[in-house]
């Protein structure tokens, strides 16, 4: 492992931890202004997290070690996954860092623990959340695999680093029309995985909309902070996968301060734009009924599959 790579790791981790809560509040602000409200401050999510970190942890008397280790497993999974997605700087090809399958299954591991923790306390809400989460994720996961299979067809690579490097050398490849379809399906997956409207509503604790929030209902104090932090990190990671694949300008391969600073500014601008899009998308839709959701997720798979068909038959 070169020094450059270690610096990359530290920088990526640092960026992810610092920036992740920002976009949670940003999307909230966009939604609030779409509804004609003022919305929270940009720093509100940071304040919430700080408050939770200071609070006491309470466990249910039913709960076991699953409840106790889940927050840690979740945040660790997300931070390890953070090393897989170069945000602003690509340190050259890696043998297995950035492997898309491993990337997806790290998310799956985090979800597995989260769903078990939902069942651990023995409350109905937690079980409901786990059940819904596992059902919906069983449809998002194939969609994600298909998206990455389509990308593997286009770029001949199963590694995010390789894809990003190819794109930073010839960013015009992102104008491939069949990739538009993939962008849509990746956007749907992003919405699904970050528990947003129309699949879930991150704002409420209503029984009808609860998927993600229900699962972490029994978490408290710093454990809850860790869970919310992991959700924020996951959102940022998926956002940057979308941005860096379909709008690949700025991601640099040279390790110099001006290059990285420039790329960081571009990355922030693109992320803010995407947050805007997500916020407006959420505001313009109503929550869908639970059993309508599979259709939306199947659309994501179908679009990815269409891309593959295009790539297979149109050389």
């Amino acid at each position: 492992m070169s020094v450059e790579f270690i610096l990359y790791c530290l920088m990526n981790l640092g960026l992810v931890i610092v920036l992740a809560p920002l976009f949670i509040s940003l999307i909230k602000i966009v939604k609030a202004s779409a509804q004609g409200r003022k919305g929270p401050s940009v720093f509100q999510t940071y304040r919430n997290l700080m408050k939770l970190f200071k609070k006491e942890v309470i466990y249910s008397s039913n709960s076991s070690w699953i409840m106790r280790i889940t927050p840690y497993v979740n945040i660790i999974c997300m931070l390890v996954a953070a090393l897989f997605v170069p945000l602003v700087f690509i340190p050259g090809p890696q043998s297995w860092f950035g492997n898309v399958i491993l990337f997806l299954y790290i998310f799956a591991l985090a979800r597995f623990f989260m769903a078990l923790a939902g069942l651990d306390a023995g409350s109905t809400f937690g079980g409901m959340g786990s059940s819904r989460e596992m059902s919906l994720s069983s449809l998002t996961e194939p969609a994600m695999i298909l998206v990455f299979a389509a990308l593997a067809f286009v770029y001949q690579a199963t590694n995010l680093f390789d894809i990003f490097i190819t794109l930073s050398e010839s960013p015009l490849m992102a104008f491939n029309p069949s990739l538009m379809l993939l962008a849509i399906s990746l956007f749907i997956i992003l919405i699904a995985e970050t528990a947003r409207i129309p699949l879930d509503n991150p704002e409420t604790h209503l029984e009808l909309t609860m998927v993600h929030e229900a699962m972490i209902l029994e978490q408290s104090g710093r454990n809850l902070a860790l869970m919310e932090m992991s959700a924020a990190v996951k959102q940022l990671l998926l956002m940057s996968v979308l941005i860096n694949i379909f709008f690949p300008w700025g991601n640099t391969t040279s390790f110099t301060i001006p290059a990285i600073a420039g790329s960081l500014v571009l990355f922030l601008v693109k992320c803010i734009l995407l947050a805007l899009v997500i916020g407006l998308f959420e505001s313009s839709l109503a929550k869908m009924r639970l059993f309508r959701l599979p259709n939306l997720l199947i659309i994501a798979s179908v679009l990815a599959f269409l891309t593959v068909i295009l790539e297979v038959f149109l050389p």
Partner: protein
Amino acid sequence: MINITLDMLFILATFLLLLAALYTLLFLTKKSKIVRGVSLSVALLANAILILISSSIVYSGTALEFNFNQIFPMMGMDFLIDRLAAFFILAVSIIAAAVTVYSFHYLDHYPQTRRKNIHIFLMNLFVLSMVYVVASRNMISFLIFWELMSVSSFFLVCFEFEKAETRKAGLFYFIMTQLSTVFLICAFVILYNETGSFELARASEMSSGLLSMAFISLFIGFGIKAGIIPFHKWLPYAHPAAPSNISALMSGLMIKVALYGLIRFLLYIFPATYLWWGILILIAGTVSAFLGVIYALKEHDLKRLLAYHSIENVGIILMGIGMCVIFTSYGLTALAMISLVAALFHTLNHGLFKSLLFLTAGSVISETRTRNIEEMGGLVKRMPKTAVLFFIGAVSISALPPFNGFVSEFLLFHSLFQSSLIPDPIVQLIMLVCLTVLALTSALAAACFVKAFGTVFLAAPRSEHAAQAKEASWSMVAGPSLLAALCIGLGVFSFQIFSWIGPRIGYSFPLPDMLPAVSVGAVLLLMIVIGFRLTDSRKPRVSETWGCGINSQNSKMEYTASGFSQPIINIFSFIYQPQKINKRYFMDIQETVFREGKVEIRMVRFFEDYVYLPIARTVQRISRWLYSQQNEVTLDPFIFYEFLAILGLILLVGVIV
């Protein structure tokens, strides 16, 4: 020199296993536990020797040859253990060792001494026969040990034969397993006809039609034993009926022996393989994997749930085999090798985690005295060690990193991702569909094991027995622990293992290195934990779960297993075809006063209702008709039938030749 010692060691292991088996027969009626203890210890020693031999062959690649022709002349008792066979013997002996340790105490709660001793006798015989099926170099000895394997496992399944359910399961299993042998014999006869030898060696060129017939026949024969859909139905019957150590052996090993047969014939015996075989195997595998997990999700019988997961995993292994055949037919040998290794590695991994799950499920079932997961719950506090072991199995089978199940599925994903290298677009699309279904399958498997672990071990106990459960005895923890350790080890160190073994086979494997990821994770964890300790030293408080205002929370408020899987059943209702039956009974004819009602939701048992039962009914009708023809028990009609049969045979042979 080394060959001779290995040879002798192998025969020593055989002898020890036989001794272990016969020892219990000698003291059949002896009540003391020491008899079984001695027998199991000897068997453990034999398995240890087998592990040693087979791992040395896997590493060195020098085949081991021996025969028993002096003892059994003219019976084709030739044996050859090459790398492939040694790999399977390794899997058999590791898992058999763990099951042997587990069996020290597992049988304690059954009262019947004689039956328990016979059980140990048959178990050792069963393991021995599996080792010898794999080692066979001749179709005759293959069949002899194959039958020994089937018969001994049949008796083992029928351990609790006084239960009608068990007798039914045993009979079902026996019929299916004999059917499998029939198909095997057909294939062997075709091969013998063409090559003139019963030896399991590369056959000479033969016509593609006959070869395909032999393949289909073998595929069905091995498919029945391996539990490929639609030949799978015996698995969900036999596994719940059998004692758990036997379920572990059957699911972990016996169905793998069938897959060994398939791989052996496809790669080492058949002179050629065709593309459509590969596609057939791939599709059969995909269907089995998907339907296996779909049926598992609706199951509340813990062992039946695990049995359906065996079907799923056999499907995944078959996908690897199918990909291997497809890649071979396009000349992509490196990818073919990766797919084959994916299949083989998954075979070992599935053996490990499925036996682990069956054994721990056995401990749970003997404590809670029910197989229904809705009556369990809260066991993580009452059986903490068993819970951890089951958890490791659940994570492995859900193909989550860094455990072993993930590694083999990763290899399979990798080879499916390479479909862009195949020139034929149709095959590419088939592979992509299979890729999607595989992703769906593994996500559903994770959902199913969240359900299983959640309802069995988490929250508050849902029944009296579950509330009073105690931790299993030491041997029932020690046996599965061995398997759990291997599940973790083969996952975390997979990259190191494959880069060590890879050059010896001559291929390199594109595996992710788990060790750095795990160590990065461990360092981060340490930092977070230390950070928390430094900033906040308060102890976490323990309080009751919030029950929406109700003070005392009880187990009725928990989410049930049926509730958990309900959304998935709803999403996939086009497969389950749930039928809602709503019956209402009234006090009077005008139907005004309601007396009672009955609402029932039942899933269509597609294969049973539309495949198995119609066939069974047809066979029954034919035999009834034949029976009516033979009603008068006199000699003359029989002589007449004999005559007709011989005449028919002569005509048939005349037409064919």
